[in-house]
C-alpha cells in the first residue's frame, strides 16, 4: 500500500523535559523524510487523538507512528482502524531509564524513533486468514469431566460430539458406592451421599445438542482447529466428523497394584485397592474377599505406590479424602473400626472440614507412620507392619481387611488418544515433564496443550476430585469455545489472542530443510508426499519460531519479518569511540519486555549503550540478525527471554530454548568471522525479576567492554 507516515511525538510524562523534542522532529522531517511530524503534550488525551484522527481523515495519513509510551499501555486510545499503527517506547526506553537532558538520552530517542519509522515502513496491515470452519466441539471421554464439558458447551449454544470408550457414560463414578457431599462450609452428617451419576448421564443423553458415541474411540484426527476431520470408530463402524475444537477429558486408570506385592496385594485376597473397595461396598456389607465374613477391622494404607520414586512420584490428591469417606462406609457397622495409616493427610481447601467431621467418630482412627509391609497374622487376619509411628517405633496393626490407597495414572500414559495425523506425532509432546499428565505450566497455560485447539480437563490433566473436575471441565469448555470462535474469525488464540497476522512462506525458495516443521512448538507445519512443508494456520500461535528457524528466511508475517527487524538493527547508531559500545538487546514480549517496562516504571537506570528491540518470542530470532548487526559494528547482542526447562515459563513452550540452541550454533560462525563468541549471549528472566534488569545489562556491557570494541566498527 502507498504509505503516508504520520509521526507523533508526545512530550508528556516528562518526555519533553528529558529530550530535545524539537531536534527529534527535525531529524524525522529531514533525515528520515517523514511527511507528517507533530508533537503534543498529551497525545493520549482527546486533543491529541483528535490531532491524529484529523490527519488520518484530511491529510491522508495511513501509517501512524506514536513516539510516546510503551505499546503495552494506552492501546485502546491509540487504536486507529484502517491504519497501520506502530508504537515507539520513548518514555520507557529513552526517558525514564536514562539521564534526563543527556546526550545519550537524545541519541537513544533518535535511534528508537528511527527504528519505529523503519518498522512502520516495512510493515503492512494484516488481513485475517479466513477459511471455512465449524464450531462443533469434540469431547473425548464420557466421565464426569467429559460430561460436564459437553453440558457446558451445549448450554452455551454449541454442538457437541462426545466419544466414550466404554459401553456407557459415567466413567469411574459408576464404580463408586457413595461420594463426598458438596462443600458448603463445615460438613455435617451424612458424610456420604449418593453419586446421582445417572442424573448427569440422563442430562447428557437427552440433550439435543450433544451427540454421544459409546464403545467408541478416536481413530485419527486430521486437519486443524476449525477444520478438524475426526474419524470416530465404534464397533467396526467409522464416521468422519468435522470438528472445531477438542476437549480432552479421557480420564485415568488406577495404578497397577500388582506392583505392590510388598503391601500384600496379590499375596492375600484380603488386600484390595481403593477402587476395589468401592465395589465391595456397593455389594452390601463390607465382606472379606477370602471368606465372606464381615470385616470388623479395616486398615487403610495411604500413599500406596505413590510419592515414591519406585512407583508414582506424585500425590493423587483425592485418595486421603476417599479413605476418610471409605472409613465412613466401614462405620456403617457400629462395631467396626477403620484405621487409616498415613504419611500425611492431604485434604485441601474446604475438605479440611471433611477431615474434621469424618474423624469425629470413635471408630475412625488415624496415625502417621511408615508402612513397611503387610504379612499374615496366622489367625486369618493380616498384620500391617509400620515404623516411626507414635503408636510405637515398630508395630503391627492387626486388620481383617487392608485397603491400599492407590493412585491415578492418566490415560495419556498408555495411549496417544488424539491420534493426530501431525508430522510431529500422534499425541501430545513432552508429557514426561508432567509425569504423563496432559498438563502445561498453569500460570501461562491453563487447560492449554501444545496442540492448538485441544484443551485438557479432569484427571487426564491433573489428579483431582469430582468437584474440581467439574470446574476444570467448565474452564476447558470455555477455552474450546474461544478457540472455535477465534479460528472462525481468522484470529489467533492464547497467547497472541486476536492477532490477525499469519505465517506466509515464500515457497519458491524453500529447500525443504524442515527446520520449521520440526521446531514449531505446536506442530503447525506438516509436509506433503514430496516432503515439502505446508502450513496449517489454524494450528499456529504466531510465535514466529518458524521465521527464526528458516535459514532461507522465507517465512514472514505482515507486520513482522526478518528484513524488518534486520533493517532496524542495521540503522541503529554505532558510536565511533572505542569506549562507547553499542549493544542490541532482543527482548521477548511475554516476560522480558514487560520486565524491562516495569524496571522503567520504577525509574531504574539502564546503561545507555543498549538498544532494545521487542520480539514476539526469542524463538523468532533469526541468526542472520546477528551477522547483520555485528557486521555493522554493533559490539554485542543480548537475548532476554522467558525461562525454559523443567519449570518453563516460555509462553510458546519452546521458543527461548530453541533460541539458546541456535546461539550455540552461531558461536561457530562468529569464530570464523574472527569475532569472539561471548559477544552474543542469552539470559532467562521472569516477569517478576524486573529489578535484576539493570544488573543483567550492566554485566553484559561490562563483559563486552572487556572483550573490546567490534573490529568491524567504522566499516
Amino acid at each position: 500500500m502507498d504509505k503516508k507516515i504520520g509521526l507523533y511525538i508526545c512530550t508528556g510524562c516528562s518526555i519533553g523535559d528529558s529530550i530535545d523534542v524539537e531536534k527529534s522532529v527535525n531529524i524525522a522531517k529531514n533525515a528520515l523524510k517523514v511527511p507528517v511530524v507533530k508533537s503534543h503534550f498529551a497525545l493520549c488525551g482527546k486533543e491529541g487523538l483528535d490531532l491524529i484522527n484529523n490527519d488520518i481523515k484530511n491529510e491522508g495519513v495511513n501509517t501512524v507512528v506514536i513516539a510516546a509510551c510503551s505499546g503495552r499501555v494506552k492501546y485502546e486510545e491509540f487504536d486507529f482502524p484502517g491504519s497501520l499503527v506502530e508504537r515507539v517506547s520513548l518514555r520507557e526506553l529513552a526517558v525514564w531509564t536514562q539521564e534526563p537532558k543527556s546526550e545519550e538520552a537524545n541519541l537513544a530517542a533518535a535511534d528508537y524513533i528511527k527504528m519505529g519509522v523503519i518498522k512502520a515502513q516495512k510493515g503492512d496491515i494484516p488481513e485475517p486468514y479466513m477459511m471455512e470452519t465449524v464450531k462443533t466441539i469434540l469431547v473425548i471421554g464420557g466421565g464426569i469431566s467429559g460430561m460436564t464439558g459437553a453440558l457446558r458447551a451445549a448450554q452455551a449454544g454449541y454442538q457437541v460430539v462426545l466419544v466414550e470408550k466404554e459401553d456407557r457414560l459415567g466413567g469411574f463414578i459408576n464404580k463408586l458406592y457413595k461420594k463426598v457431599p458438596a462443600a458448603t462450609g463445615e460438613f455435617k452428617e451424612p458424610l456420604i451421599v449418593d453419586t446421582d451419576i445417572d442424573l448427569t448421564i440422563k442430562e447428557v443423553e437427552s440433550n439435543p445438542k450433544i451427540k454421544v458415541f459409546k464403545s467408541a474411540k478416536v481413530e485419527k484426527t486430521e486437519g486443524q482447529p476449525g477444520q478438524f476431520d475426526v474419524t470416530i470408530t465404534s464397533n467396526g463402524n467409522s464416521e468422519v466428523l468435522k470438528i472445531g475444537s477438542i476437549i480432552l477429558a479421557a480420564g485415568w486408570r488406577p495404578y497397577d497394584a500388582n506392583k505392590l506385592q510388598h503391601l500384600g496385594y496379590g499375596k492375600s485376597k484380603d488386600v484390595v485397592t481403593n477402587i476395589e473397595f468401592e465395589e465391595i461396598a456397593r455389594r452390601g456389607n463390607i465382606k472379606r474377599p477370602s471368606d465372606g465374613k464381615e470385616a470388623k477391622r479395616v486398615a487403610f494404607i495411604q500413599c500406596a505406590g505413590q510419592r515414591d520414586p519406585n512407583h508414582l512420584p506424585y500425590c493423587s490428591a483425592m485418595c486421603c479424602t476417599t479413605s476418610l469417606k471409605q472409613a465412613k462406609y466401614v462405620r456403617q457397622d457400629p462395631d467396626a473400626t477403620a484405621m487409616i495409616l498415613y504419611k500425611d493427610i492431604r485434604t485441601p481447601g474446604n475438605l479440611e472440614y471433611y477431615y474434621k467431621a469424618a474423624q469425629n467418630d470413635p471408630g475412625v482412627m488415624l496415625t502417621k507412620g511408615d508402612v513397611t509391609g503387610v504379612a499374615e497374622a496366622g489367625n486369618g487376619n493380616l498384620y500391617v507392619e509400620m515404623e516411626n509411628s507414635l503408636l510405637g517405633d515398630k508395630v503391627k496393626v492387626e486388620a481383617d481387611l487392608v485397603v491400599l490407597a492407590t493412585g491415578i495414572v492418566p490415560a495419556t500414559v498408555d495411549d496417544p488418544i488424539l491420534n493426530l495425523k501431525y508430522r510431529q506425532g500422534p499425541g501430545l509432546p513432552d508429557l514426561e515433564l508432567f509425569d504423563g499428565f496432559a498438563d502445561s505450566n498453569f500460570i501461562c497455560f491453563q487447560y492449554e496443550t501444545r496442540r492448538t485447539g485441544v484443551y485438557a480437563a479432569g484427571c487426564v490433566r491433573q489428579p483431582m476430585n469430582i468437584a474440581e473436575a467439574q470446574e476444570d471441565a467448565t474452564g476447558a469448555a470455555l477455552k474450546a469455545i474461544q478457540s472455535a470462535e477465534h479460528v472462525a474469525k481468522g484470529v489467533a488464540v492464547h497467547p497472541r489472542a486476536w492477532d490477525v497476522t499469519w505465517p506466509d512462506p515464500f515457497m519458491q525458495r524453500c529447500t525443504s530443510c524442515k527446520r520449521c516443521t520440526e521446531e514449531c512448538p505446536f506442530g503447525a507445519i506438516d509436509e506433503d508426499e514430496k516432503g515439502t512443508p505446508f502450513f496449517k494456520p489454524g494450528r499456529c500461535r504466531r510465535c514466529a519460531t518458524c521465521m527464526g528457524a528458516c535459514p532461507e528466511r522465507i517465512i514472514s508475517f505482515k507486520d513482522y519479518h526478518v528484513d524488518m527487524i534486520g533493517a532496524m538493527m542495521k540503522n541503529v547508531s554505532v558510536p565511533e569511540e572505542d569506549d562507547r559500545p553499542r549493544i542490541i538487546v532482543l527482548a521477548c514480549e511475554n516476560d522480558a519486555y514487560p520486565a524491562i517496562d516495569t524496571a522503567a516504571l520504577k525509574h531504574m537506570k539502564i546503561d545507555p549503550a543498549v538498544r532494545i528491540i521487542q520480539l514476539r518470542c526469542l524463538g523468532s530470532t533469526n541468526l542472520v540478525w546477528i551477522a547483520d548487526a555485528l557486521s555493522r559494528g554493533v559490539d554485542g547482542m543480548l537475548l532476554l527471554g522467558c525461562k525454559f526447562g523443567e519449570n518453563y515459563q516460555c509462553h510458546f513452550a519452546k521458543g527461548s530454548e530453541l533460541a539458546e540452541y541456535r546461539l550455540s550454533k552461531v558461536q561457530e560462525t562468529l569464530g570464523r568471522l574472527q569475532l569472539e563468541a561471548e559477544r552474543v549471549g542469552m539470559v532467562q528472566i521472569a516477569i517478576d525479576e524486573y529489578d535484576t534488569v539493570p544488573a543483567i545489562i550492566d554485566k553484559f556491557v561490562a563483559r563486552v567492554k572487556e572483550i573490546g570494541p567490534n573490529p568491524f566498527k567504522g566499516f
Partner: protein
Amino acid sequence: MAEETMEQIIKPDLNFVKDIIASGGESLKKCYQCSTCTVVCSVTPDEKPFPRKEMLYAQWGMKDKLISNPDVWLCHQCSDCTAYCPRGAKPGEVLGAIRKMTIEEYSPTPFAKMAGDPKYLLVLFAIPILLFLSYIVPKGYLDFSAIPRGEDGGIVYAKFMPIFPQIDVTFSLATFFALACFVIGIKKYWSAMSAGMQLKGSLTDSIKTAIIDILTHKNFQKCTVTKDRSTAHLLVFYAFLGLAITTSWAIAYLYGHEFFGLTATSLFHFGESPYPLYDPMKILANASALTLFTGITLVAMNRAKNSPKAGGGSYFDWLFIMVIFAIVITGILSEVLRLANIEGVAYPVYFMHLVFIFFLIAYAPFSKMAHMVYRTTAMVFARQAGRE
C-alpha cells in the same frame, strides 16, 4: 511407662474409646496430632512428651498404654494445651478423663464405677446417712430436745454423736479401708509402670524431691492460662494439712485426757470437746477452715472463669469440689450455730458435716481425691525413671 516389646501388636479397643468419651473426653476425636499441646505444655519432659501421644493412644483405644503411664499423672491440668489447641480437642479434659479411668482401674470394689457415675450419687450418700442415723435414731435423738447438753447448757456435739466408739471407730475403719485400697492401687500402678524398665536413684531421694515439689507447688507455677490455680490449690492444700493436724491434735487432747490423765492447762486444753476458741488448736482449726473456704471458692471461680479456654471439667471434677465446699460450709456453720445455740439447725448441719467427711474419706480411693496419691506416685516414679 511399660516399655514396648519389639513389634507390638495394635488391636484398638473401640469400647475403651467410647468410655473415655463418656468420661469427659468427648472432644477427643478432634485431635489431628499437630503437637501444639506438647509444645505449649510447661511440665512435660522433653523426651516423648505428653499430652500428644496420650491423645493418640486414647483415639486408638490403647488402654494398657494409658493406664500404665506416669505422664497422665505428671499432668497438672493447667489446661494450657486446651487453650491453645487449634482444633478444640481439649487435651486437658481428655487427660482428666483418662485419670478418672485410671483411678477406676486400680481401685477395686464396685465403688470405683459408682464414684464416677451420677446415677449412683444417692447410693453413695445413703451409706453414711443410714450409718449415722443408726447411731442416733435408737437413742431418740431425732428429737433435738432429747439430746443432753453441756454443763453450761450449751450444745455439745459429742453428746449427740459420741466420739468413741461411733465417730472414731467409724472414721478409723473408713480411713483404714481407704488406705488399704490406696496401697493396693499404688502397688498395681507402680508395677504396671515399671514393667520392663530400669529404675535408678534412691527411692527416698525421689520421694523427698517429690514432696518438696508438692509443698512449693512448683509445677503449678509453670501454667500460663490458668495460673490462678496455683494460689487456689495452695490454699486448699495447706488448709487440708492444717485440718489434718487439727484432727490429730484434737484426738491427742481427748485421749491424752482419757488414757494418760492429762488435764487442761491455760494453753492446751486436754479433755473433752468443745474446746475454747482461744486454744491454739482451735485457732489453727478455724484458720484452716477459712483458708479452705477461700481456697475452694477460688478453685470454683477460676474454673468457671477459665472454662471457655480451658474446658469446663467433668462430673467427676465438680463432685469433688462440691463435697469439699459442703464440708467447709457445714463445718463453719456447725461451730457458728453451736455458739449461737440454734439447735434446730445446728444438729442437722453437724450431721451432714459428718456425712460429707465420711464421703470424702471412704470414697477417697475412687474419687478425684485419689489424685493426691496417684500424682505423688507418678512424680516419684518419674524421678526414678529419669523422666524429669
